[in-house]
C-alpha cells in the first residue's frame, strides 16, 4: 500500500504520522511551500486525506484531488469537511466517535469545577505568594447546580451522567426532544439558558448551530451564569462573549475552543472567572492513540475493500 498517496492536512499526532509514513506514501500538506504547484504535481497519486479539527477537506481541496476516495478525520467533529461535496463525488468519510467521548465529558465537568471553584485562579494565588497575606475569596458550590446541555448526543449524555453524580438537575436542548429521556427538554436555547446555572455546548458545528451562543443567550444566562464550551469555537459569538465577561454581564466561562485557534482573546487573560484551555478535549495519551488507531483502521479497511469502522459518509 506504500504507493497509495495520503495527504495529511495538518500536524496532529506523531504516532499517526509515523504509521501513515510506514504504510502509505505520506504527503504533509503543511510543509508544502506552494500548494497549487504541489497539487498539480501530486494530485493524481492522492487517494486519501487525513484531517482533524484544525484542517480537513473543503470543496476546493476535494475538487483538486480527482482520485480522492476517502477522508478520514482525526476528530469526531466534521465541520472542516465538505460533506455535501463528498456525498456528491462518492468519497467516503470517517471520524473518531466513542473513543473520545469520555475524555471530552470529563473535561466539561473539569471546567465546571475549575470555573466555579476557581481552581486555576487559586493555584495562581498560591504560586504568587498571596496566600501568606490573606485567604482566597469565596467560590461557588458545584453540587446541586442546574446544568443545561446543548446537544444530547454521545458527549452530551456522558456529561449529563457525570453531572448527575454531583446531584445537578439536568436539562437540555437539541434539534428534537428525545423520547424516554429523564432530563427536562427546553425547545429553545434561550429558554434553556434562562433556566440553568451552567450551560454546556456539546452539539456538532453546522451552519444552523454557528453562533448558537449569541447575545440573547448570554443575557439569559446572566451575571451568575457560566458557559462551558467543549464544542467548536464558532458555536459562540466570541466578541459578544468577551464583552459580556469583561463587563460582568456573564458570571464565568470555561473554554476549550475558540473562533480562530490558536488565537485566544487577550481581554480574557486577566479574568479569574474564566478558564482557558488549548483545545485539549480529547488530549490524553490513551485517547489520541485510540483515535489514531481508528484513522489507520478505517484507511486499512477502505484500501483492502473491507467495511469501514466508523463511516459517516
Amino acid at each position: 500500500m506504500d504507493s497509495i498517496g495520503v495527504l495529511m492536512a495538518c500536524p496532529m499526532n506523531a504516532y499517526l504520522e509515523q504509521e501513515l509514513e510506514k504504510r502509505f506514501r505520506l504527503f504533509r500538506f503543511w510543509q508544502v511551500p506552494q500548494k497549487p504547484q504541489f497539487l498539480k504535481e501530486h494530485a493524481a497519486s492522492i487517494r486519501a486525506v487525513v484531517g482533524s479539527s484544525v484542517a480537513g477537506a473543503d470543496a476546493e481541496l476535494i475538487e483538486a484531488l480527482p482520485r480522492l476516495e476517502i477522508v478520514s478525520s482525526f476528530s469526531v467533529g466534521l465541520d472542516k469537511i465538505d460533506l455535501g461535496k463528498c456525498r456528491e463525488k462518492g468519497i467516503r468519510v470517517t471520524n473518531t466517535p466513542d473513543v473520545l467521548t469520555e475524555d471530552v465529558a470529563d473535561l466539561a465537568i473539569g471546567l465546571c469545577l475549575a470555573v466555579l471553584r476557581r481552581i486555576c485562579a487559586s493555584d495562581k494565588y498560591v504560586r504568587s505568594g498571596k496566600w501568606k497575606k490573606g485567604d482566597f475569596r469565596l467560590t461557588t458550590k458545584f453540587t446541586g447546580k442546574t446544568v443545561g446541555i446543548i446537544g444530547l448526543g454521545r458527549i452530551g449524555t456522558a456529561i449529563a451522567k457525570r453531572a448527575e453524580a454531583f446531584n445537578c438537575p439536568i436539562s437540555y436542548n437539541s434539534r428534537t426532544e428525545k423520547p424516554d429521556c429523564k432530563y427536562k427538554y427546553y425547545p429553545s436555547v434561550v429558554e434553556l439558558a434562562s433556566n440553568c446555572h451552567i450551560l454546556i455546548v456539546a452539539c456538532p458545528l453546522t451552519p444552523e448551530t454557528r453562533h448558537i451562543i449569541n447575545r440573547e443567550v448570554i443575557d439569559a444566562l446572566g451575571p451568575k451564569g457560566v458557559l462551558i464550551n467543549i464544542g467548536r469555537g464558532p458555536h459562540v459569538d466570541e466578541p459578544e462573549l468577551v464583552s459580556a465577561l469583561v463587563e460582568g454581564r456573564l458570571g464565568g466561562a470555561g473554554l476549550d475552543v475558540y473562533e480562530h485557534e490558536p488565537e485566544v482573546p487577550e481581554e480574557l487573560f486577566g479574568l479569574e472567572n474564566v478558564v482557558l484551555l488549548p483545545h485539549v478535549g480529547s488530549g490524553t495519551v490513551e485517547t489520541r492513540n485510540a483515535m489514531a488507531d481508528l484513522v489507520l483502521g478505517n484507511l486499512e479497511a477502505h484500501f483492502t475493500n473491507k467495511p469501514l469502522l466508523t463511516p459517516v459518509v
Partner: protein
Amino acid sequence: MASLPRNDGAPPPPPRRRPPPRVLLLRHPHHFSLIDRPLPDGFLFLKPWESPLPFDDFLSSADARAAEAIYSSGREPVTADMLRRLPEARLVVTTSAGLNHIDVAECRRRGVAIACSGDVYTDDVADLAVGLLIDVLRKLSASDRYVRRGSWRSEGEFALGSKLGGKRVGIVGLGRIGEEVAKRLEAFGCAISYHSRKKKPYVSYTFYPNVHELATNCDAIVICCGLTEQTHHMINREVLLALGKDGVIVNIGRGPIIDEKEMVQLLVQGELGGAGLDVFENEPSVPEELLTLDNVVLSPHRAVYTPETLSNLCDLVVGNLEAFFSNKPLLSPVTTAKLDSVGFS
C-alpha cells in the same frame, strides 16, 4: 412558644423567660461574617476579643464563668483546663470538620455535649477532590497558564494529559467525604478501592488493609480521612513510591497526613507523577519547590468556602444552639459512631 389559653378566656400569663443562654465565642465567628450573616437572637454571645482583658483573665471573669456553651471554629482549642474553668458549660459547638482541637475525653467525663459540622462540608470537599484530580490528570491549570502566556500561539500544542476513565482510585478513609468522592468518580468510570481502619460491611469497593497495598494497586489516591496520631505521616516515602512515577495523590484531609518533605522530593525527582493539594503541613507556607512544578495543583485550604456551604453551616450552628437550649436533640451531635469514624476509638 405561646401557651394555650385557659378555658375562662383570660389571656395566658407571660411565659417565664429564662435569661438568654450565654455562648462563649473563642474567636470572631468568621463563618457568619464571611456571608454577612448576623449572629442569632436569643443568645448572649461573649466576645473575649472585645474585652481589654487578656484571654486567660477573661476566662476567669464572672461573665465567662457563666458561659453555658463554647463555640470554637477549630483553631481554638477546647482543653480540659478550659472546661474546668467553665463549670456551667454543657455544650461545645465546633464548626470544624475535625475534632483534634477538643479534649473529647474530658467532655465525655463532664457530660458536655459536642455539636460538630455534620454533613455540611461533604459535597464541597468531595467536589474539590474531584476537581483537583481532573486538573492534575488533564493539566487544566498548567494549560491555562500556557494559554495565558501566549505559548499556544508560539509553541503549539500543550503536552497530552492522562485519561481519568479506567483509573484505579484509592480512597483513604471511607467516611462521608470518601463515599461522596467515590460516588462521583464512579460516574467517570474509575475503579474504586479504599483503605479504612476497618473494612466496611455492605460496601462493594475493594478493601485494602493498609495504605501501602492500596497505593501499590492504584493509579491515584485521595486522602479523605482525619488527622490523628495514627494518620500522622501515614503517607510516607514507601507509600508514595508504591504509587509511582505516574501516580497521583490528592489531599483534602490535613497536611500532616502526608510526609510533605518526602512528597516534595519525590515530585521533584519524578518518582511521583503528580499531586493535587488543598492542605499543607505549615499553612499558609507551601514548599517553594512546588511553586514551579506543572504536575501539581495547589489550593489554599478553601475546600469549604462557598456561600452555599457557609450558609448551611450557619444554619446548622444556630439549629444546634436552639435545639440544645430547648432540650431537643442536637442536629449534628458527636456520637460514639462519629468519634470512631474520625479516628477516635
